[in-house]
């Protein structure tokens, strides 16, 4: 017994001593320690990859932000009527999109600040491509700040990790931030190649393109009364890219999986959101949320104002061209019309499974309960139910919730499943740089051949004629053309959202209800069209672009003369000038009451 007791007490004594030792309580975190992390090239690379991870901002349902944002303009619409920004009162300080857009951009900035300040002590010893990665980070931070000032105006501004004493800061002037963006890019381009080796990375062309884009914003909105300076910067930045990259041969290739594999598309695409069908996939629902109810979900639609902006093939606006036929609006048009939009009568090809069995091919119909489908097994056409008209969810279709047009751009994918498409989404193309150059020069009224050439390159690529002689030397007419080109060339790439604000045309685009295709006036008992529709469209059914000089300048169609014959939605649509800026999210002002609210909210 003596021994047992001795042992027990020894054991307990030992237990107490051993447990007292700090080893027992020192546990090492399972994540990397942030102290001194960024002292190797590998660490910097990993950290910068983490920034790119944040840059793919998804504010809709698997829909990249830039595609989503053009639906907050008059050129496109979301499914629910009177609901998108500009079409109703959805824009308020509690709006979820407004909040997420704010948060996501600041996450990019925070990640950049943390990598840059974390690696600063080791700059000398960091080898390999570290400088390039850090330069990429700086450009991405500029990108995020551009997103913020272009939507919110003045915002809190930091180029170092935010410290506790900055939690009650006020907003910084957008001019200060713009100047930072411009100088940052100048600093970064030194370490960047003209075209990134690894697709998806920031390169010099994008950096200069972003500089041009940002300066154009400052010029158009006359930041700090320095409009001319900014236009000059924009033109110069754009000019430096011109010649370094080139347009792809085929416009359609830019927006399909197959086309994007081509070298010329890679060359035109300066920066893009990367998707992948390899290994661990990354897909989006841009197509799924856009296409016919016969194989997709349909949540976002183009507007007639956009469709009617496309010139006829002769280079003239539809109200001015003899080639325009209201019975066949898609005929004789700028080829980009057919590249961007699908409409009644078009044959659509898609896929629901990503296999041969999932192929679907049918004729779009906005009127009838059945339409023609193609049977791939028998190679025969047959009449099947048209879910865009005749299904429980038909109200969401391009015919009902839309105005008769459907997005083909990013959706034209016959082999991949529509619910898992992986084409990249461009954030900047060479075409934009050309048009930005032209616009800056036009605003500076420096109309020379480089301007016409820039615009011609974009137009000629799609088979449209050169700038017509009556526009040469005419600033207003050139302004009209470059705006028109930006719309038709770049729609759905997120640029019009800011363009509308730069050009201050929100009131024009959003003044009336949305009108669309000529409706069926009489239908038979089974719902088939008897009269009305495109077939009975009359030659006078051409929209009026000249309601005012501003309408004319900005190609805003007006349908009042025959609106009763047209599909209509958004009857409560209205514009309020406060919509030119997003409100500062309520949550942010709750957390820092020193942030002022934008006017009107």
């Amino acid at each position, binding site marked *: 017994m003596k021994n047992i007791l001795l042992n027990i007490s020894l054991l307990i004594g030992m237990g107490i001593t051993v447990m007292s030792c700090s080893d027992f309580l020192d546990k090492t975190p399972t994540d990397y320690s942030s102290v001194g992390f960024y002292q190797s090239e590998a660490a910097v690379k*990993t950290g910068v990859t983490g920034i790119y991870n944040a840059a793919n901002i998804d504010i809709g349902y698997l829909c990249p932000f830039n595609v989503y944002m053009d639906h907050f303009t008059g050129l496109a619409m979301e499914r629910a009527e009177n609901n998108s920004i500009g079409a109703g009162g959805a824009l*308020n300080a509690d709006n*979820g999109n407004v909040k997420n857009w704010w948060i996501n951009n600041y996450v990019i900035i925070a990640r950049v600040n943390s990598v840059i300040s974390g690696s600063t002590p080791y700059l000398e010893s960091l080898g390999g491509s570290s400088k390039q990665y850090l330069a990429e980070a700086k450009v991405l931070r500029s990108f995020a700040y551009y997103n913020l000032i272009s939507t919110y105006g003045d915002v809190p501004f930091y180029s170092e990790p935010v410290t506790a004493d900055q939690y009650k800061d006020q907003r910084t002037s957008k001019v200060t931030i713009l100047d930072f963006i411009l100088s940052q890019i100048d600093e970064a381009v030194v370490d960047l190649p003209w075209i990134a080796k690894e697709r998806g990375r920031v390169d010099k062309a994008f950096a200069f393109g972003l500089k041009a884009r940002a300066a154009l914003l400052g010029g158009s909105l006359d930041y700090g009364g320095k409009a001319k300076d900014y236009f000059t910067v924009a033109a110069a930045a754009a000019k430096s890219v011109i010649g370094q990259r080139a347009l792809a041969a085929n416009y359609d290739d830019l927006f399909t999986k197959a086309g994007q594999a081509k070298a010329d598309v890679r060359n035109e695409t300066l920066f893009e959101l990367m998707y992948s069908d390899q290994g*661990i996939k990354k897909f989006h629902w841009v197509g799924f949320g856009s296409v016919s109810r016969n194989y997709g979900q349909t949540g976002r639609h183009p507007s007639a104002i956009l469709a009617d902006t496309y010139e006829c093939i002769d280079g003239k606006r539809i109200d001015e061209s003899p080639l325009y036929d209201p019975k066949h609006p898609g005929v004789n048009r700028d080829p980009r019309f057919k590249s961007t939009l699908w409409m009644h009568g078009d044959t659509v090809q898609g896929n629901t499974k990503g296999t041969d069995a999932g192929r679907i091919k049918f004729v779009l119909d906005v009127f009838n309960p059945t339409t023609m489908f193609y049977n791939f097994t028998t190679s025969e056409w047959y009449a099947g139910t048209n879910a865009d008209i005749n299904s429980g969810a038909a109200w969401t279709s391009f015919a009902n919730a839309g105005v008769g047009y459907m997005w083909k751009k990013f959706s034209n994918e016959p082999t991949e499943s529509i619910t898992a498409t992986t084409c990249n989404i461009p954030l900047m193309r060479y075409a934009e740089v050309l048009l930005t150059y032209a616009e800056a020069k036009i605003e500076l009224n420096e109309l020379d051949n480089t301007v016409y050439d820039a615009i011609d390159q974009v137009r000629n690529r799609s088979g449209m004629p050169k700038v017509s002689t009556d526009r040469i030397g005419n600033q207003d007419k050139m302004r009209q053309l470059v705006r028109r080109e930006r719309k038709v060339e770049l729609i759905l790439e997120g640029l019009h959202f800011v363009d509308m604000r730069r050009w201050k045309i929100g009131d024009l685009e959003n003044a009336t209800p949305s009108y669309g295709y000529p409706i069926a006036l009489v239908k038979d008992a089974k719902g088939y069209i008897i009269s009305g529709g495109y077939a009975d469209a009359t030659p006078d059914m051409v929209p009026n672009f000249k309601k005012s000089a501003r309408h004319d300048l900005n190609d805003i169609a007006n349908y009042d003369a025959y609106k009763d014959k047209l599909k209509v939605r958004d009857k409560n649509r209205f514009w309020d000038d406060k919509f030119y800026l997003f409100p500062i999210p309520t949550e942010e002002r*709750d*957390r820092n009451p020193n*942030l002022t609210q934008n006017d009107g909210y």
Partner: protein
Amino acid sequence: MEKIPCKLKELVKIPKLVWVMCLLLSVNLFTYAENNSYSQTTTLTVKMNNKTVKDVFNYIEKNSEFIFVYYDYAIDTKRIVDVNVQNQPINAILNELFKGTDVTYTINNRQVIVKKKENVPVVSKLQQQTIEITGIVKDNTGEPIIGANIILKGSNTGVITDMDGRYAIKVLSPKSVLVVSYIGYIPQEVTVGNRSVLNIELSPSTESLDEVVVVGYGTQKKVNLTGSVQNISNRDLSKRSASNTSVALQGLAPGVSVVTSSGRPGYDGAGITIRGTGSLNSSTSPLVLIDGVEGYMNFIDINTIESISVLKDAASASIYGSRASNGVILITTKRSKEQPIKVTYSGYVGYNTPTELPDPVNAIEYMEAVNLANSNAGANQTYSNDLIEQYKTLGADNLNRYETNWRKEIINDKALTHNHSVSITGGSKDISVFANAAYYYQDGNISNNNYDRMTLRLNTDARITDWMKVGVDVNIRQSKVVRPAFDTPESIINKATTFVPIFSGINSDGTWGYGQNGDNPIATSKVSGLHTATTPELGLKGFVTINPFKGFDMTASYSSSRLEDKTDFFINPYDTYEYGVYKTTFPATGTQKNEAWGQKMSNEFNAQASYEKQIKGSYFKVLGGMHTSEKSGRSFDATRTGFDFIGFEDLNNGDIATATNNGSHWDWSMLSYFSRINYSFKDRYLLELNGRWDASSRFMADHRWGFFPSASVGWRVSEEPFFNPIKDVVNNLKIRGSYGTLGNQDISINGYEQYYPYAATIGSGYGYWFDEVLGSGATQSQVANDKISWEKSTQMNVGVDLDFVNSKLSASFDYYIRNINNMLQQFPIPRYVGLSSAWENAGSMRNNGWDLSVTWRDRIGKVNYHLTGNLSDVKNTVTNLYGKEYIGTQITREGDALGSWYGYLSDGYFQSQAEIDESPVYGTRANVKPGYIKYKDISGPDGIADGIVNDYDRTILGNPSPRYEFSLNMGAEWNNFDFSLFLQGVGKKDIYYAGYGVRPFYVGRSMTQNQLDNWTPTNTDAAFPLLLIDGSGSNANNIISDFWVKSGAYMRVKNVVIGYTLPKNLLQKIKIDNLRFYVSGQNLFTVSNAYKGYDPECAVSLTTSGTTVSGGNFYPLMQTFTFGMDIRF
């Protein structure tokens, strides 16, 4: 050698008191072990005349360290003796004492073992002297008790009374002791003496004053408690036939709030908070200890529980220090004593049916409502009059026109549940065993959803020597949860009640309908594959207890448990069709297999020693000990997609190019010392002091140690002489008071525990696809603070316990103030920081409240009945946040209750355009129409109404935390019938409804019947505002306002049981001790003002924090009807 400096360093850091205590402990042991000559060196002086042998023993025990060990029957301790010795060693005294008798003794250290001389064969002698005893066992009213147990103490012999209460038993000697017991009565021990007829009267066991209650690291007589401890016996728990322990606890203890938030099989455990929410970011759950080891109360069979103690105040809980901030629940499982082997079976079978479900509209109602909503918004009509007319005249054919009653197709009204539990108890003097095997099964209310659980518990005790006991406990569990692979049951049920009725579900040709974009919850629940989670758990505990001398008790235990979590699922896509045409295969991502494995290991070591002693009127007990706890976990999972061959579902069969895997681990540890001193004087004045020192690996070394002391006092007023005159009326009166400190370090974010909260870390998993290949990325996502330390709470408790009129009426009342300080929290920082905020020790809040419990027990004629009412309240106030605020739909700010609903005040509807034009509006005026909710303009930037409704006009709308929780437990027995009724409810609680729950057409969904009562120019005081398609937050009607906040107060008939016990005389013939049948119903009836279709107790959304209620996914609570039986052999 390296370790030495480290040890020395630590030695200094450990609080001195601990060391003194430990030192004492070991010195004591060493002295004891080495000094074996006590009996030779100690001398005693005994001068006693005309005293019994027993008196002499007692005297020696009191005045020395000797302890006498003997069997009563073996020696005559009542023999009168005279002893007169001076300064003699013990053997001289004993020789004198036993001179001329057949008694001898041996001295083993301090132990004096007294027995008969060995040449006298005790057993045979006793056998010759067998005496037969007969008698009748009656209750206090004179009724004979049938089936009472009469056991000969210290043997395996026992008999049962017959139908007249008679018994006959053979005993060995007049010194033999009979133990008479019967369920519901206080057991009695009677020494046979010279009698041959022994009639015994048993008293019903009301909550007896001798009741012993399990407290931290020990037990204590209930009368001596100074803290606030609630004891719950197995009887109260098991009669509920609840699906798990937490649910069974509901309403049994005042101040213990039990909220069941889901009826999902395997996930229907209730959330428990004791005396209000105890923390902002750290854990708010009480510490649950099963036989002293941290465990999961919902995974043990209720029949294995002996008792549950809830330690509510700081003084009772503080011996658990750091982990006890939210109170402690001590679960003691059954153990066997020395007794004949008994087998018990308890089982029930029954069914579950949802208490409440939203009632969706049909196809025609839906289409008409959509059209109304469109016209309200000035939008186009979605469904043509022709189509609606077709539905009305032709109906749906599910080929050209669809109508699907999703709820009916998906949700089954009745789901089977059954439980079986077999226990074996028994043992000899040396070894005893309690073994239980149980099986529980619960079917879900949708297809392919069920839960089963097998448990095995083995509690073994062995006596190795007279002074040493060892034990081994084994706990094995395997539970399995099955659900559809592609979607959660909550989401499927949500879709069942919100999917659009004109979507296709099942086509007339038997194919699956297209649902919403291919998502067909009927097919998802039936054919999308299975998700299976199995959870094997193995818990082992070994302990040794030694009692080397009287009053000293030492226990060391080591426990190890391993909890695994193995899940796998295979998503099996289904083809959907609409209008006879193939539409899509859902999910479009195709086949997918995932296997995941996680493991939590927990090792705990505990060593404690206590010594108690009574010196005249003073009683004291000292306890000291240490505890270490080390936990770790790891997890691993792998996924592949692209399975080409049906039936081959192993990961290996998938496309290797799609293979992904993840893995991680964590660990943390705690080291603690604890000590307690109890002192009582004359059984009237009670004092208890507790201290605990804790160190957690969650904090950096300099901030690691916390000290948590407490003190409590009690005064048993009824024991005072001056109380005697009224003692017949007031049998017991005790006043208690306590004050103490507790700690918390169990930090979590959205339910995910933070193991290294002090560290600034960079996490991986933020990759990006360069050149279409996913590259790894990392980022810091949180600001760090390495100076964080313990969150502390202090609690003051005063209480009074009263018993009246023969203990028929008893009452207990406690009032407490609980202050939580140095709260560990992440203050909301501006989003522009881009990181989440660091942990800080900052801020305070207070919970003050009271608990009241009143019990009445009596009988009317042959009916025994009892009533227990519990009522409690707790009020939370945030007292200091350094001026900061947490604002969302809930606000946490100084001066208000934690997480109060925060938003706008509504003022009815706008009834006309004129009213809109002249009123302040929220959002854009052009957007507001008659039938919209009108909001009050109560403030502005300068604190006065400014004519605009914006964020300045938000205010507190209500409090989601329950207050005035009450319960009433009634029971009665008549002849062989027993009946119990249990009511439970909440007096005040505010529920905010949002999302799918109350918004028509929310994100493409349908609406419910009660939403048809919406505003129109002719229905101006409707329950819902102007019907609009848009259910999102941008609709001004949907912002948070008191319009959507409803009272969540309710009262419900929680449980009714009617049982019948077969008469003993019948059972005796077939050798059955006891057989009872019962029927039971749960959640039978509810009174509430909450929205129809939503149970006020159920969390309608599981996506936000567990206790708040908003729209979204939920699994309805269940009404349960069971039939069961208990049988004992």
